[in-house]
């Protein structure tokens, strides 16, 4: 079971934050098909948010085919993001990335520069793919 949190200062609507967190957990393999999502009542009570906000997030996940409600029981994960094989590749890729980060720090880059370099490289690689 995952636990939701809310960033009050992000400016992102709370129901979108909940959706992002489910998608994120699916990508990282923290949530798998068949897992139950936290009960609406528990999320509302835990975060002190309107239950309709939670319902809206869950309905959106249903619409995306990622979850399904079983009346009287709860909402369950029915889809995946990124298949099992790609999840298995996470470990080695993470290690590569850690080595790269160590190198970047060794070259004297601070966190902001590392992030900027990563994002700009990521973007230009994506643009090349599209072109």
């Amino acid at each position, binding site marked *: 079971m995952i636990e939701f949190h809310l960033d009050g200062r992000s400016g992102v609507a709370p129901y979108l934050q909940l959706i992002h967190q489910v998608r994120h957990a699916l990508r990282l393999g923290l949530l798998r098909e068949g897992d139950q999502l936290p009960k609406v009542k528990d999320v509302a009570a835990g*975060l002190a948010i*309107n239950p309709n906000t939670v319902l809206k997030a869950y309905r959106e996940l249903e619409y995306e085919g990622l979850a399904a409600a079983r009346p009287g029981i709860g909402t369950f994960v029915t889809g995946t993001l990124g298949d099992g094989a790609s999840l298995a590749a996470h470990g080695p890729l993470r290690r590569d990335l850690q080595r790269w980060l160590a190198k970047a720090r060794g070259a004297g880059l601070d966190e902001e520069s590392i992030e900027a370099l990563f994002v700009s490289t990521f973007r230009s690689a994506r643009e090349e793919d599209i072109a």
Partner: protein
Amino acid sequence: MTAVIETGSLGKRYRRLWALSDCTLSVPAGHVVGLVGPNGAGKTTLLSLATGNLLPTTGTIEVLGGRPAAGQAQLARVGYLAQDAPVYAGLSVAEHLRLGARLNPGWDAGLARSRVERLDLDAGQKAGTLSGGQRAQLALTLAIAKRPELLILDEPVASLDPLARREFLQDLMEATAEQGLSVVLSSHLVGDLERVCDYLIVLVGSRVRLAGPLEELLAGHHLLSGPRRDPRSLPDSMQVISASHTDVQSTLLVRTSGPVLDPAWMVSEVALEDLVLGYMSQATGRGRRNHLEVQR
């Protein structure tokens, strides 16, 4: 679905002063409604009319389809938590629960008991010696355990510290989810409202300035900033709620149904606070200072 509160040209006058004027509202069921406005705007008056503690001077009000406080059955359907969570200082926690059981036909003793246990309230303790947070929680317990369809709360968390406030709102949201309650609460703590409310009513100077589902209201308003210009030159589809100007720049809060296409404007989304402050300054004329300066 019937409206939880339906008013038509509702007004309340104290001697010569109108505390509420020409209030026409239809609040649908199943929402947590935030009632906001400055002190003295008429929030408590509206809530007192809804609970039947006050009678209207003009107009009509129906709550859950009935006249407020019209009889036993109507009283049982509405829970009310007045400002500062009043409890009987000389009665113990257990005596409050017994009183609740005696006075309310639909009393849920199991719910009341389990809440008191979970809150770690000592059943024998006099309510007058409880902390502010505990007192509010005891009052909420009484209001929830009568199993109302509509819960009306007047500034329930204003006097609580941040932790007690969060705990109170957590329990309120849990009850809302569990019992399918409709809730109307007044507050001027915008941060709290942003989390719990999905319907907003802005009351300023005894009048309703804005009412509707929160998401629609947020989507229908934009903050525009750009080169200084006269708000009157904007298209008719845009209603200017508040405006401020420097010698080179104008910043406007506008209400519009469509997208803003004029490339001269930088458009940003509004948050609940922008909306509330915008309508408050529109009504009071405060915040227009800069506007007057440039028109000199």
